[in-house]
């Protein structure tokens, strides 16, 4: 990214590294620039360093190397309470000995705000999360979803421009989660705040975010809007981590422009779109989304197809999942919409499958 873009960014990580024990790097060379008002999600497996990044931004951990900037200003040496960053913790961290209203007025009190103004703001924040009636309750008297809203309101009440959320919905059930995802997104959009959101849940990441940063092994593997991430994963980690995915292993037979042919380990030849393979003879892992595979395709004379055997047919209501054995892979899934004319396979049937070459991405083999 260009230097000027970095300087314009609202939040910027620049070559940030972090080690807790001086032996292993938990965060390796992190570069990230966020414009104001963006909703960015950090997604990645457990232990990949997401919380660490958030803590460095909030000021509870110091970066071992590199610089973190907020609004163009380096915050490496600013203590947490002066950063003005709102934070929603995974277990909410509502103060148990204070009422909801006291919890909300706490950040205003420590900023020396007058009583009347405090009450007004607390009231407004509670109404924003539709909890106006609960000001007098203790956190223990609220349901999980209600506590979550209060935690959100508390992070927003002092008008922080940047709000960090570390798996804020982790403890909620599926329905409440979906509802809260929607609420958080709505409030963030309404207020125009910048949000860094950490989650394990890829659906959550895809539905809420402007951009998603996929973490693995202390690095951002790919930083892209959700659709790009899903449809054009840059490497096989991202392809595998986001959404369902079929893989086949092989070697590059021919490569040129945006087409390559791959000879699979079974000898079959397929067409693919080379993403991060360069040379003929390189090992590659090709990746095809289950919904992009076609049965008995009619793709033109020069297109390659594969023979497949039906192993299992699963009826899932809106879609059918068909498990196939393809080129030595017994877990090859194909998803088809439940249409009146869709054939329902039975195990043992032998069929032909194929796909558009641009839907099949040849990625690194690691």
């Amino acid at each position, binding site marked *: 990214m260009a230097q000027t873009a970095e300087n314009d960014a609202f939040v910027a990580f620049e070559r940030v590294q972090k080690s807790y024990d001086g032996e292993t790097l938990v965060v390796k060379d992190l570069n990230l620039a966020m414009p104001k008002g963006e909703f960015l999600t950090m997604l990645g497996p457990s232990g990949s360093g997401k919380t660490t990044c958030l803590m460095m931004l*909030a*000021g*509870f951990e110091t970066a071992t190397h590199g610089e973190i900037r907020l609004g163009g200003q380096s915050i490496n040496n600013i*203590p*947490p*309470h*002066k*950063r*003005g*960053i*709102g*934070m929603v*913790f995974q*277990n909410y*961290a509502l*103060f*148990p*000995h204070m009422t909801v209203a006291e919890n909300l007025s*706490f*950040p205003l009190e*420590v*900023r020396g705000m007058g009583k009347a103004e405090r009450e007004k703001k607390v009231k407004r924040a509670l109404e924003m999360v539709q909890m106006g009636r609960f000001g007098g309750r203790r956190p223990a008297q609220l349901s999980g979803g209600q506590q979550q809203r209060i935690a959100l309101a*508390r*992070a927003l009440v*002092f008008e922080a421009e940047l709000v960090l959320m570390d798996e804020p919905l982790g403890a909620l059930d599926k329905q409440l989660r979906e509802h809260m995802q929607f609420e958080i997104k709505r409030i963030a959009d309404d207020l125009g705040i910048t949000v860094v959101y950490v989650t394990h849940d890829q659906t959550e990441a895809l539905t809420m975010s402007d951009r998603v940063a996929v973490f693995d092994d202390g690095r951002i593997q790919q930083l892209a809007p959700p659709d790009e991430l899903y449809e054009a994963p840059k490497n096989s980690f991202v392809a595998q981590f986001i959404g369902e995915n079929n893989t086949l292993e092989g070697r590059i037979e021919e490569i040129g422009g945006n087409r390559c042919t791959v000879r699979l380990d079974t000898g079959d030849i397929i067409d693919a779109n080379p993403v991060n393979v360069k040379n003929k003879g390189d090992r590659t892992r090709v990746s095809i989304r289950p919904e992009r595979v076609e049965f008995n395709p009619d793709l033109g004379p020069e297109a390659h197809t594969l023979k497949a055997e039906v192993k299992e047919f699963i009826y899932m209501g809106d879609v059918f999942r068909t498990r196939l054995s393809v080129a030595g892979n017994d877990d090859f899934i194909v998803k088809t919409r439940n249409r009146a004319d869709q054939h329902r396979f039975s195990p043992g049937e032998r069929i032909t499958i194929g796909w558009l070459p641009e839907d099949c991405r040849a990625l690194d083999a690691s």
Partner: protein
Amino acid sequence: MSDATADPNKVEAPTPDDPLAQAKALDNRDASGRMLAADGTPLKRQLAKSLRVQKIRALMLIAPLLIFVLLTFIAPIADMLFRSVENQIVSETLPETVEALEDWDYESGEAPGEPVYDALYNDLFLAAEYKNHTRLGTRLNYELTGVSSLFRQAGRDVEDRGEAYLDQFEELNDQWEDEVVWAELMGSDEWLEAQRAWSEDSGDRLPRFQLREGVAALLPETTRSFLNFVEFIRTEDRESPLDEEPWSRVYTALYTDLMNNDVSAYSGPHAELLQEAAAAVPDFETQTTKEFFLSVDDDWADPELWGTIQAFSPDYTSGYFLSAVDMQKTPEGAALRNEDERIYGLLFKRTMFMSLMITFSCILLGYPIAYLLANLPARTANLLMILVLLPFWTSLLVRTSAWKVMLQQQGVINDVLVWLGLVGDGSRLVMINNQFGTIVAMTHILLPFMILPMYSVMSTIPPTYVRAARSLGATNMTAFRRVYFPQSVPGIGAGSILVFILAIGYYITPEIVGGTTGTFISNRIAYHISSSLNWGLAAALGTILLAVVLILYWAYDRIVGIDNVKLGG
């Protein structure tokens, strides 16, 4: 449900394939609306039955502990409560005197009449034989000084009074010296026969004594004292009345009887001996019981003494409790003791004050340690924890003595201060054998009891709270004050209760380092238990201490709420 039960068809013939109807049929109740189980017995009873086995098993599991606690904790406390009011010694040792005194009025300001002294002579003679009179003297001496020696003296002299009569009877006829004559006079023929057949070596039980017919009416006083005598030598000495000359008391009684009763009609054994004596007694040298007691000591005429005996004659008394609060049970009622005799109020106040000081110092010293323990990495925290627990592995006596070495005037601290020139060699600080020494040593000893509950509460406070406070804009100090501290208060509460209750009853340390100004009420209790042997007073003091602790506990519950006390989790 009501429609299903209202329609008998549905209840009687539930269609098996209709689960709703089945469920409703199962939901049957009896006339009074109680739920019934499948076999028609009330559901409550079935439940109770199935729970009973569980309860019995649980009870058996805790039974050993329950019995242990009952025996070693509840029973001693109950015994202590009982002892603090129990006072049967007076009415048991002086039964007749107590009864005779009932008619006497302390307000009159005069010594009681002759019957009271007669009764006292009776009681005291018996008590002296059983050696009970000194115990009673000691007991009454708690209430009125001098009583102890009065009783000891009288106990010795009652013997002499009878001797005077004995001598005169013997002078008259030396048959009165013969125990066999007495046995024949008083005992029935059957008994005499049985008693003569008995020998000490046979190991048989002594035959039961039987009175000669008519003797009780003839010589009532003599009979009574002779029976006492027989009972005594039978149970205490296992002696035959045939081998033992009667007590001198019996001769006094004989004198009284011969003076008051006519024996001329008597024709049993030794009739002429008795009649000879009856003729002679009016010329005997004599002395009334009252005169005798006054000759032993003038104080026996003191209404104060009799008032005290009267005030303490009931089986239960408030006297110990009055003493424990620096008052006194006098014949006129409860009264404050003299200024210079009041010590318990001072001791209670001092005990409270010092316990509070110790608790407070423990909070001040313990809080930072507990905080460190809860917030350091596990390895360091464990090491620190061992240091905290280290005192538990050292003998209490050793630790207390160590403080003596540290604090005494030639001790380590004074030496260092002198060496530093902070105090002059002549004006070394007095830090031991006073309150300061007790507070220092006990704070040290009780500190772990403060740290542990605090630590266990603090370790359950997640660090995210403080982080959240900081991210909301609070400085370190504010985050601690507003967020961390309030959540650690239950730990302070638990630690304080523990330390305070331990401190208020502490004994060893104040005994060793307390001197005279730094001792606790418990030291006084121990003194009464092991030195003055005034267990009743010790029990009353202990009961008051228990009550104070319970009241404080109750007050704490009202003010802070006992739910706010946490030992962890």
